[in-house]
């Protein structure tokens, strides 16, 4: 992996991790559907894990401690995601809404031009 450092690839993955974390934070704050908030949270987590592993392989050999840590993190992430989805299902059945600010009473907007075309 010294090759990784020499070729500057470590910096590339560092940039990617920073970008993914930024996108995750943006999505977490801007998304209105809770399922998408959950996706953003997962992205944020993935970015952090990527950051950890990139920093861990900056020396000659990859660091097994952080690899083990990240491996644990991956399994925990999927279980937390499943738990959050169970909470979402319950929320939906209790309130019929999948947003946090369910109190606002604006009517459905079928033809919002901002979302009409991707």
């Amino acid at each position: 992996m010294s090759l990784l450092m020499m070729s500057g690839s470590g910096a590339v993955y560092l940039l990617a991790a920073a970008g993914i974390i930024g996108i995750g934070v943006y999505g977490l704050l801007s998304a209105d559907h809770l399922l998408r908030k959950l996706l953003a949270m997962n992205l944020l987590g993935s970015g952090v894990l990527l950051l950890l592993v990139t920093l861990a392989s900056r020396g000659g050999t990859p660091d097994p401690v952080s690899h083990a840590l990240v491996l644990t993190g991956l399994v925990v992430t999927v279980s937390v995601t499943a738990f959050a989805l169970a909470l979402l299902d319950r929320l939906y059945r209790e309130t019929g809404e999948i947003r946090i600010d369910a109190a606002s009473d604006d009517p459905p907007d079928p033809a919002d031009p901002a979302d009409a075309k991707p």
Partner: protein
Amino acid sequence: MNTVLSGFAIFLLLNLAAGMVRAFRGPTSSDRMSAALLFGSTVVALLLILAERDAMPALRDVALLFVLLAAILTVAFVGMPAVDAADQDAESPGEEGGAAPSNDARPGPAPKIPGGGRRAGP
């Protein structure tokens, strides 16, 4: 030989970028899913190439896992109902609004919408 392998890997990544365009544009959910299929098969090829190039035989196991589990996604996908909000959410996101039908209204797996699930919207 490493140069050839790297070049081929870059070519495959460019293919992935093209697949990303299809996954993003849709227009139907089936299109997005088939683009995801392209991703699976291309990533498998990439893993095999990288396993050879970087001398990491474990990446072949990763490729094996991908082909083994690739079908799970499509099996999960076919159960999706083709109600308007499902297939057409790209075009009309707010259509179903807060209609919130109760769960009991759609019992069982793979509810089939008569009439081919055409849009009821505007």
